[in-house]
């Protein structure tokens, strides 16, 4: 569950997000729509504490997200799987190690890591690329590594920031299927996108933003 209560987080007086309030229930998959620069990424970055909130409150599963204490934020972030718009892959680690990272951070045994990584590699159709470095991949492949990394730790919440921008329609559909299945298994999924044709057939709820404000 994700709840925003009058959240304002702005970079300057008129860029950022302003006075947002909404609730996304557990096991729900919600799309965050809006034109470029609307504030979609800002919403997601506010949830994982990547940018500070000026006012208002954000709750995950009825717990307010931690702010100051860096240790608490770390443990909170482990519950969230994020697909970043710019992928944020570690350049000098292999695909395998990039995907394994969230599990390394929680100290998962190597054998279990192996199993899980190979499972998500299959899901995103990258089997055979595990030894490549990120710069040896095509744009779409890099994006799928980022998706796999968000899935591998089976998080409570998945934040997907434009996860299909570099993927062709068929693969995009597969990815959204995977996210939908995760939601069915109890994960809360919030996915930002401006690809309306892609999500229209899904019949999901969507939240629409424009210039930082919610459109009712």
């Amino acid at each position, binding site marked *: 569950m994700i709840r925003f209560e009058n959240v304002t987080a702005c970079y300057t007086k008129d860029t950022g997000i302003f006075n947002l309030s909404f609730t996304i229930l557990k096991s729900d998959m919600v799309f965050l729509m809006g034109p470029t620069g609307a504030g979609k990424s800002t919403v997601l970055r506010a949830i994982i504490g990547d940018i500070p909130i000026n006012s208002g409150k954000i709750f995950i599963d009825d717990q307010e997200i931690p702010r100051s204490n860096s240790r608490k934020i770390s*443990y909170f972030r482990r519950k969230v799987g*994020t697909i970043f718009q710019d992928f*944020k892959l*570690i350049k000098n680690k292999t695909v395998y190690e990039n995907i394994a*990272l969230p599990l390394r951070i929680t*100290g998962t045994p*190597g054998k279990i890591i192996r199993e899980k990584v190979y499972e998500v590699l299959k899901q995103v159709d990258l089997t055979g690329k595990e030894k490549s470095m990120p710069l040896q991949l095509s744009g779409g492949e890099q994006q799928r590594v980022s998706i796999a990394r968000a899935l591998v730790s089976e998080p409570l919440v998945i934040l997907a920031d434009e996860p299909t921008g570099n993927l062709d329609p068929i693969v995009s559909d597969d990815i959204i299927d995977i996210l939908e299945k995760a939601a069915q298994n109890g994960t809360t999924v919030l996915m930002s996108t401006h690809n309306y044709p892609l999500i229209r057939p899904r019949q999901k709820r969507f939240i629409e933003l424009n210039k930082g404000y919610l459109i009712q």
Partner: protein
Amino acid sequence: MFRKFIFLLSESVKALSRAKIPALISSITIAITLFIFSIAYYSLTNMIGYSHDFKRKYRIDVFFSPEVEMKQGMELFNTILLIDGIEQGDFVDREDAAVEFQRLFNYDVVEIIGENPLPFGGKYEIDKSYRKAREMGKIVNEIRLIPGVDLALFSTGLIMRIDKIIGNIVGIGFIIGIGIFIISVILVSNTIRLIIHAKQDDIHTLRLLGATDLFIKFPFVMEGILQGVIGAGLSILAITLLKSILYYILGEFQFVILEPVMLVSGNIVAGCLLGIYASYRSISKYLL
């Protein structure tokens, strides 16, 4: 916890072998530091060796009155030996004195003056802890008061000068030592800070994935240690090389021998400590 440790350890090794240039640069910096340290250490050791050479000059010459004969002279000689600060002594008879005179001043008294004008006497070596101009002055005065002693002397000017030089060397050496230490830490931690600077995007990503401070810092500290070991290796190599070159160029002079065990173990321990301290310092300044 242990599993995480193993992972982080292997990560550090990988980081070193992958990010070759930064790691190598850090190692070279450590190597240079250790190299300077070792050179300084062995220079000091050699300098002390040198000054021991000088210290042989810390000797008091005593001349007995001309009327003192052999037997009485021996008694006097033994009395003086018992004075605090006298380490050992040699009895000097008339002929010895003439020979000594010739050795010191390069000419023969007997030849100049026609007869041997020198009395019996003694040469005394001074205990290490008394080898200062002031202490020696006291001893000389004590000796002078003994009946039958005509003269007791030491070369004040030379000893004062040596005192001054050694004082200067120790003082300057101390300042240089502090200087080298500060410089080393600055250089190594700067290098590591540059490496962290280059990795700051990755560090931000790790933070967003929920990594704790320890998880992020550990590889840097480990890298510091590994670089310390590599740096130590390089510096040991360089010193061994330099030693052979010096032997070749300045072969005629005597050097204090470099004990290999000391050199290797000292360098490795110092390298690791430097690596740990510098990386930890740069991390805490830069990461938090």
